[in-house]
């Protein structure tokens, strides 16, 4: 049913660290791999080896440049997948009941055998988290790897979403954001985790940890000044006199003034 639950027992979701993500796209590939081989219709590609390839992805990594009013620009890699919103508009707009939010863990899923592929849920999602699969004609979205996280056939270490398991930088964290004592909730509190487009009123479960401020290069020089500063200085005193005197001598002298 497309009525949203008033509350869910748990709020399973991801915390994505924009400070740590290196933009390697490994999570994109592992997501596509796992979700093509497992739950639901495969994520198809169109014209994969042609001039204009495209395909269905549940997780995509953007890169942004942030230019502060002063100082250097910062590059931020920005993975984006379904945020499993508490007030998910994609669920309530669905005419067939194919889209739903689970009471037990808050995961937003699509029942693919009921989906008519009308696309309205994708229209209603501010984050571009839903993509209509062109081969299958049904809506695809992140399942939070619902077929991994409870899967007792997998070793315990693998019972997390594929992207989290894969990330080489440790930029993706998985857990219950409804429990204030969980590791992910603590991380969000500590680092000031934020919502994307809060003005849309979707109340995303997934949180993003903002990049830490960049170190100031000028300040750093000061810390090492006693060791490094003399290197670039003009020689003074006796050495200065010697330098100039040697310069005056006829013959070829290499390099600059010191």
């Amino acid at each position, binding site marked *: *049913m*497309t*009525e*949203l639950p008033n509350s869910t027992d748990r709020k399973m979701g991801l915390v994505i660290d924009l400070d740590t993500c290196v933009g390697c796209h490994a999570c*994109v590939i592992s997501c596509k791999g796992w979700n093509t081989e497992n739950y639901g219709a495969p994520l198809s590609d169109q014209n994969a080896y042609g001039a*204009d*390839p*495209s*395909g*269905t*992805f549940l997780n*995509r990594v*953007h*890169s*942004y*440049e*942030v*230019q*502060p*009013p002063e100082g250097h620009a*910062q590059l*931020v890699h920005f993975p*984006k997948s379904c945020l499993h919103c508490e007030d998910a*508009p994609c*669920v*309530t*707009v*669905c*005419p*067939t*009941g194919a889209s739903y939010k689970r009471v037990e863990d808050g995961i937003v899923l699509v029942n693919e055998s*009921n*989906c*008519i*592929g*009308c*696309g*309205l849920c*994708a*229209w*209603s*999602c*501010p*984050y*571009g988290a839903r*993509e*209509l699969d*062109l081969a299958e*004609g049904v*809506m695809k979205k992140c399942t939070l790897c619902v077929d991994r996280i409870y899967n007792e056939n997998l070793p315990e270490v693998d019972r997390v979403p594929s992207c989290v398991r894969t990330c080489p930088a440790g930029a993706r964290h998985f857990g219950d954001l409804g429990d204030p004592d969980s590791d992910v909730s603590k991380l969000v509190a500590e680092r000031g985790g*934020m919502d*994307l*487009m*809060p*003005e*849309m*009123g979707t109340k995303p479960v997934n949180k*993003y940890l*903002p*990049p830490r401020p960049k170190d100031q290069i000028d300040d750093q020089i000061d810390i090492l000044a006693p060791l490094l500063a003399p290197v670039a200085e003009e020689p003074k005193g006796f050495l200065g006199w010697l330098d100039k005197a040697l310069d005056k001598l006829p013959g070829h002298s290499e390099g600059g003034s010191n």
Partner: protein
Amino acid sequence: MHPAPSVIIFTTLSGLGFGLLTFLGLGKPEVTGWVAFVFYAIAFGFAVGGLLASTFHLGRPERAWRAFSQWKTSWLSREGICAVAALVVMGLFAFGAVFLDTHWWALGWIGAALSLATVFTTSMIYTQLKTIPRWNMSLTPVMFLSFSLAGGSLLAGAEALAPWLLAIAGAVQLAYWAKGDQAFATSGTDMGTATGLGDRGTVRAFEPPHTGSNYLLREFVHVVGRKHAQKLRVIAFALGFALPLICLILPVEGLMLKHLLAGIAVLLHIAGVATSRWLFFAQAEHVVGLYYGKR
């Protein structure tokens, strides 16, 4: 938004068809027999034709019947139910008028109300979407309803009402464009809120996730053709409202000429509304475009 022909045809034709059904249900004109048959054939043709066209954009049209189930939350579901109810009720009313020479007025009024409700629910499918500020305005349902009534009165040959309804629809169209042009800027959503990085500086899309295109860009970031928007607006306004209005109020002698002008007015209006609907979709900017540095 991608201006898919199926949704443009659907909203244009079904708007006209349900508009005409509204007038027929109210007894304007009060027709029976063969004349009624022609009127109802046109109305049902447009309404049903439009609904059928709308199923062409489904990924799985064979499951369309499932769309009637979620009326509690989904405007699309409500629209489906209203449309079927309107068609059934008006079908019975039409049966009485065409074959039995009788008007079951209670049915007619209910049918008229359901027809308008169908147009309203259609408009709410678009209006409800916060992700598309240009649609997320109270003027959107006003526009759909005023167009439908204007077109319906034209088709119904309601000589006294049609010029007024056309003028109102034209005014609503202008207001919708004026307000819609501000909608995205006043929505408060920009690349800063989309990425959450806005308070640190100016955010610029540096690299898209993939070199190729994708479903999101094809469906939501339709920028081609927007450059002709102003010209198309003039065309839509002239064809849809100004010229049909002139056709109706021209002081001409003779029934033949009058009917001819009314026919021309209908054709112009349909072309104008279709153009306006093309713009409705093509000019609608989805906030997801911001993630790609686009609108």
